């Protein structure tokens, strides 16, 4: 039986090879790799690229064609592709460990997120183990369409093989119990540009649950201080608004201002 994409969902070696740019382009820096081989009515990759690196479609069913010279590997298209068919590869990364590794930036829509420094299992297009890989960056912000991008470092010889990650059962370090956010979630938002409690509140609802920030805010302030390199005293703890605990609107609506529950009847 032919192991075709149509039968298995796994692209052939030739298809993958066709998605990669020539070696000279890889040597120049980060570039998007799009594995979209079937004509379907979908064009956000082409319409989202601010550099015109994806040739505009004549028909919405066109498959994308990359102008490699225009692509700078910004990853914007990764967060727009409903098929999660795009990754970015960077072979010019200065590997601090002095190894011969490339960066692969992958969309990862699962929880928990890995944390920077974690070792994850890098898998191939069939989900099989390829190698262990170090997580170098985890990014998430409000502009990313809820698509976290996990950057892993893998041996350059494996960069055409690796296409996914798999996390070992990870014990979560929980930051916010009310809204179920762990250290990796918050770290990803901070890496994605968040610099204050109020910003994080708006994107994650951190501090807006029953505890009203008593558990999460001190932890997140510590994380912000370490990442931004400023003392906690210089960070805002966020805005405190009434009330100090959650209350039901319906109960408030029933409030009778003439009543005097606590006093001695003096209205």
């Amino acid at each position, binding site marked *: 039986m032919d192991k075709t994409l149509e039968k298995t969902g796994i692209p052939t070696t030739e298809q993958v090879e066709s998605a990669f740019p020539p070696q000279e382009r890889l040597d120049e820096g980060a570039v998007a790799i799009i594995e979209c081989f079937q004509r379907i009515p979908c064009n956000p990759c082409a319409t989202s690229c601010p550099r015109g690196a994806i040739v505009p479609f004549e028909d919405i069913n066109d498959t994308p064609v990359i102008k490699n010279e225009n692509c700078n590997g910004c990853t914007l298209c990764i967060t727009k592709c409903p098929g999660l068919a795009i990754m970015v590869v960077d072979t010019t990364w200065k590997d601090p460990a002095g190894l011969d590794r490339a960066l692969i930036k992958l969309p990862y829509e699962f929880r928990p997120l890995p944390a920077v420094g974690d070792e994850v299992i890098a898998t191939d297009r069939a989900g099989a183990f390829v190698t262990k890989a170090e997580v170098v960056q985890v990014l998430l912000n409000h502009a990313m369409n809820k698509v976290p991008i996990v950057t892993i470092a893998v041996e350059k010889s494996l960069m055409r093989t690796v296409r996914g990650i798999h996390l070992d059962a990870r014990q979560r370090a929980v930051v916010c119990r009310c809204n179920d956010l762990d250290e990796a979630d918050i770290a990803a938002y901070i890496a994605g540009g968040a610099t204050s409690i109020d910003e994080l509140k708006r994107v994650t609802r951190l501090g807006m649950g029953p505890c009203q920030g008593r558990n999460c805010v001190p932890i997140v302030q510590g994380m912000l201080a370490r990442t931004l390199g400023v003392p906690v005293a210089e960070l805002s703890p966020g805005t405190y608004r009434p009330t100090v605990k959650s209350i039901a609107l319906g109960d408030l609506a*029933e409030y009778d201002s003439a009543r005097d529950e606590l006093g001695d009847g003096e209205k």
Partner: protein
Amino acid sequence: MIHTDLLICGAGPAGLCAAIEAGAAGANVLVLERGHAPGGQLVKQTHMFFGSEKQYASYRGFDISDILLAQMKEMPNIKLVCNTTVLAAYSDDGIWTAEIAGQTPNDKPRYEKILPKAVIVATGASEKPLLFPGNDLPGVYGAGAVQTLMNQYGIKPASRVVMLGAGNIGLIVSYQLMQAGVDVLAVCDAAPHIGGYLVHASKLARMGVPIMTSHSVKRAEGDGKLDRVTLWELDENWQGIAGTEKVFAADALCVAVGLSPLSELLWQAGAEMLYVPALGGYVPYRDENLRTTIPSIFVAGDVAGVEEASSAMVTGRLAGLGAAQYLGYDVIALEAKKEDCLGQLQSLRHGHGGRILEGIQQASL
């Protein structure tokens, strides 16, 4: 709407002492307490207090609570209401709101508006959280929560405990766990020195409990509930040293890494705040009478800066005196009483290597 001279938020050691002083001066006082009984943390302190006679040294916390409540009962101008949470302070019209819990969990809460002439915020502090893998496993507790279960509700929280934090809370709760028949496998602290009183540490050490300074938790593990705690040694930069891991078969891990002032109401009211690590976090600027930058709002106890309960009682008295004076009541021997309180604080605060004093200095107007 309720009108009162003085609203006191919280009936812990600070709030009770504040009520007693302001009540004695003649003020009408409304004390609102979130818990089902007054006394705050005092009621679960089964150990004898330090300090001097004036702060009831050698009495146990729960006995001190009874003494203060008996004094308060003598004064009909003080009204204490429990099961009631002060919810909010509205700076535009000076109204405060409170939620009165129902009699049973199925009853709806009720709400009340209060227009006080002055307020003493004595809300206390909450336990600081700690970030580590597995920190949400059932079996990972705040040390204060364990103390509540054990000493207030009579529930044995676990059989084998690892205590994180060798400050006074970690040391005292460890000792009380031993008294309740719980094994304390180790007390560890990230700092290179024991933070709490050394006599508390020695009580544990002579019962064979190892106290491991420069150690912290690497991870907590278990299948659905805690059953293993891994500690490791920290280097001088507070980083864990690989190869120094020690695994403990524990069914509870108590986190006692300090307290943060519960200052939400002060933020809402618009008081000017300052971050002072030595006092546990954000605290309000205050003058000698514990008055904040808002003339009608005073603070007392841990919300003004985390200290011992003995200091909380004295700051409560000062705030009560200050508020009564602000309200125009003639406080008999006011200056002498204040002098006495300030003297007590001075000596209580000298016991912490000057850190508390320095912190108070920073937040003083």
